[in-house]
């Protein structure tokens, strides 16, 4: 039996017609546990979905094949929220607003900030509070 793993995905729907209940199929047909971080899916428009899928590697691979048939672009790097190290001034304004410590102080002596992508739940709080435009959302 193949191992269970978790994958963070950003799905892009070039023009979504809402005909496919995609999440339903991921759960029902591919035995995946789905955790949606955020979504912006409007009929007749481009859409995005950021989610974790948990399941056996075999099931995840099959699910990826299925997504391709739905005209969905899958971004495996899972970066819905990005942090630009060069725009960051390391002020620390974001850290009390980040609920998961994805943005955190990496070095207490120099107050250097670091971003732990895997811990980010895409709540977008940092984008609202960062005065220097260091954080951005793919959508």
């Amino acid at each position, binding site marked *: 039996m193949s191992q269970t793993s978790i994958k963070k995905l950003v799905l892009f729907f070039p023009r979504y017609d809402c005909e496919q209940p995609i999440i339903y199929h991921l759960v029902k047909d591919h035995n995946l546990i789905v955790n949606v971080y955020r979504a912006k899916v409007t009929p007749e428009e481009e859409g995005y979905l950021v989610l974790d899928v948990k399941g056996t590697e075999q099931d995840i691979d099959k699910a990826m094949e299925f997504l391709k048939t739905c005209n969905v672009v899958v971004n495996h790097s899972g970066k819905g929220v990005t942090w630009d190290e060069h725009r960051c*001034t390391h002020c620390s304004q974001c850290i009390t*607003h980040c609920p998961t410590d994805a943005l955190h102080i990496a070095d207490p002596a120099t107050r250097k900030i670091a971003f732990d992508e895997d811990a980010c739940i895409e709540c977008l709080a940092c984008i609202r509070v960062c*005065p*220097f435009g260091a954080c951005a959302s793919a959508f």
Partner: protein
Amino acid sequence: MKTYEQINDRIASGKAVVLTADEIMDYVDKKGLEAAAKEVDVVTTATFGPMCSSGCFINFGHSKPKIRMSEAWIEDVLVYTGIAAVDVYLGATQLRHGDPANMYYPGEFRYGGGHVIEDLVAGKSLQLFALSYGTDEYPRREIRTWFTINDVNQATMVNPRNCYQNYNVAINDGDRTICTYLGVLEPRRGNATYCSAGQLSPLLNDPYYDIIGVGTRVWLAGAQGHVYAEGTQHAGACERTPNGVPMEGAGTLALTADMKHMKPEFVRGVSLRGYGVSLALGVGVPIPILNEQVLKRTCVRDRDIQAPVIDYSSDYPNKTGRTLCHVNYEQLRSGEIEIDGKKIAVASLSSYHKALEIANLLADEIRRGDFLLSGPIQPLPKNTAMKSLVIRKKPV
């Protein structure tokens, strides 16, 4: 005892001993004050954070035919033209034309004066649009062109107020989220913010303005500039700790420097949600170690510097003058303070990381002999107090 001349001779010959205000305390603890005062020539101080009272004069030179600009915009940001024909003043907090501001609260304030200044220093091509009523010798009525910092005659930063000596810690005692120039504050003391480099900050290392004065050469965003006046709202008469450190804002500096020599990473536009735009600047100030007393003052530590905690939901806007309590910068920098038994997460708006970088860059410049010190030609006032704006009836 040392003089500026002796220190400058040592700098010029590449022999100066320079430490940052972050390093000096441990050095003095190890060597003793007397020995260290003989050895150390300069201690570098620095800060990086939003400084709203910043801006610059730009002279564009003349177009053919000439224009006397009476209204002008750079990248749609209004500049002040009530001076000579092709001189303008661009202010850091000016919003872009058509910015909805807080019409849809809280406004995002993505771009404004501070961002134009950042782009200018970064060498970007910017749009100038100007109008005029036309005169006999300046007949042109309108101009639209693109320019970079290299195309203009002068781009001189002239900042009426930088480097606040100390600053407030902001919290929100109210029951809704508020957006302030110190950041977004969650209700019921959900978080706190502060804005100072603490032990690294220039005027906290010279609490009585014995060293820093009008004429002092400073490092302004990488360019060599100087203090041209006491900063606006400079008010040295305030409550101080036994070691002389102000327990509130107190002193400020008015700074100027040539923007053509600035480094873009230390000139950064600021967007403060629900508040507006501003400019964050990096400033470094060298302190010549003329005697033991000067050195002793540079040994101030975060734990010895007290900042007032102010409620920005009510006390600050209503100018009640109430301070909830004082906390020190060691507590602030730990990321958590305790007020009335409640632990509150703290974040900074000024960057200690960048301030440290600046203190080290300036120290390196001095060690290389590239940055000489200049003493003040006039001291900053020590005992002036802050006045309030009184609302009066028209005098009869």
